[in-house]
């Protein structure tokens, strides 16, 4: 079974969101997503300062099987990206909820309202057979 940490929130398109103490959020892709993609060989991250729109493509992950867009789970502004992924994209395969984080974003007010809790995301995964 895929890991779904209880303290995070999730988008149906398999991104996770962690609230940070300063009001910003950390974003990455879920264990289900990294497993479905397979071994990652390349990650393209947005520029710091870029405005993101919830549901729109904000990054690209490329594995030995496929290249896929990552959809921003919130609207907001990119504060920082995980530079380590440029040289070691496999961090996402190894620790997708930890060292494999992708970006920190200052979310626009209310833009995270539609995200799922861990239980709802687990149910979503069960529905698609994941």
């Amino acid at each position, binding site marked *: 079974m895929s890991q779904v940490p209880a303290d995070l929130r999730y988008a149906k398109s398999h991104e996770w969101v962690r609230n940070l103490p300063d009001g910003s959020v950390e974003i990455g892709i879920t264990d289900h997503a990294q497993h479905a993609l397979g*071994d990652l*060989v390349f990650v393209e991250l947005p520029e710091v300062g870029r405005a993101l729109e919830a549901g729109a493509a904000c990054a690209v992950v490329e594995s030995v*099987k496929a290249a896929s867009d990552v959809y921003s789970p919130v609207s907001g502004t990119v504060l920082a990206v995980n530079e380590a992924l440029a040289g070691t994209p496999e961090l996402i395969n190894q620790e997708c909820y930890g060292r494999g984080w992708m970006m920190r974003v200052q979310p626009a007010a209310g833009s995270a309202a539609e995200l799922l809790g861990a239980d709802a995301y687990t149910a979503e995964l069960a529905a698609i057979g994941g």
Partner: protein
Amino acid sequence: MSDLKPAEKLIFEYSRPGRGATAQHPPAPTNAASDDLPAAFRRRTPPRLPEVSELDAVRHFTRLSQLNFAIDTHFYPLGSCTMKYNPKACNQYAMLPEFLARHPLAPATHGQGFLECMFELQEMLKEVTGMRAVSLNPMAGAHGEFAGVAMIRAYHAARGDHARNEIIVPEAAHGTNPATATMCGCIVKEIPVDAQGDVDLDALAKAVGPNTAGIMLTNPSTLGVFERKIREVAKLVHGVGGLLYYDGANLNAILGKVRPGDMGFDVIHMNLHKTFSTPHGGGGPGAGAVGVSARLEPFLPVPIVGRDAQGYRWLSERDRPQSIGRLSAFMGNAGVLLRAYIYMRMLGREGMGRVGEYATLNANYLLARLRAAGFDLAYPERRASHEFIVTVKRQAKEFNVTAMDFAKRLLDFGFHAPTTYFPLLVPECLLIEPTETESRETLDAFVEAMIAILGEAERDAAQVKGAPYTMPVRRLDDVRAAKQLDLAWKPVESPA
């Protein structure tokens, strides 16, 4: 992986200074051409070419050819690629000296035979696809796609309709379509398909509007099923002023049976190297002829072959001032076009229909036998078109044997792998396209191999996961190959 020896050395590794094959030397160059090059652009050192004996060269290239996994040696059910047999007669006639020695700048009066072939090819493609006009100019499938979307943009621009910059792409479209739309400066809007594999009409209705330039579809879709709502799709898109683009990737399934023009498409590209059987996939260049409805005809790429009282002639920018221009210097890949022409002439009108019939029959036969053998189908309630999707998601979960493992093990059984992990929306999938040129015995042998691998997966997964065992190289490290590129051979000791 380092313990494996390369199957054949590079020809440079056979090289010894001064060795050669005098009898095979070309005539000495006159240097007349290079005399015109400015001195700054001429090389100062001779190129590093291998120096080998005639026997070394013959053995090297014969061994390389024996490593090839090709349609002439193996069943090649690579979904979406239509790896059908390429009849030798097509090659034989296209190699006639009258074709080969023709100079592309020779006046039209000196090449009436060639022009007639190209004109008739245009006419046959129009007839079999139901389009108003055809240009043979694009030199590959992606090139044809580019021409198609460029014509859609030119059409809207000519009407002063400049806001239309969105191309709708269903997730069952051909994989290259989003890239083509982006390349042409459009914004891609992806829409989902429903559980049966048809376009989600509600999502389409929400996606279309005053910015819609068009929609890119393939029918049958990349899911290996016929898009049953195509008329509704056409009505919705045309209703808002958009155009319909048909990707010819899967034309083989409907050849001689259903015509894209009759389904409401405005522009289509045809992969002559798939449907019309010219060599491809490392075996030869492609040809991506485009066909259009009446309203797009003025924008077709030139040259096109026309006919008047004096005979056949090239139609150029003078005849077609609104053309999107030239996509190749002369007439596309002329030799490939000739092979496709000969193939179509050999088939004739009735033969075209049999292509569609047997491509579909072979796919449905394989589908039925694999289902009976215990494989899961991605769309079990749908009939296959010319291809279908098996998903080994269950086997991946139960035995940890993935689609890639099945694909690699098939090589040991003497079969090229089907397309794996595409389309993206079906997990652990194998997209299988047998084509019409395979016998029932070959199809049965493929099924037996799949059954044998399934048995291995249940009893001894490690056997499958370690495959292939009989190829020049074992399982490659895809991640390392992508990250540590090894692109250029360097000599052990560099020459002085």
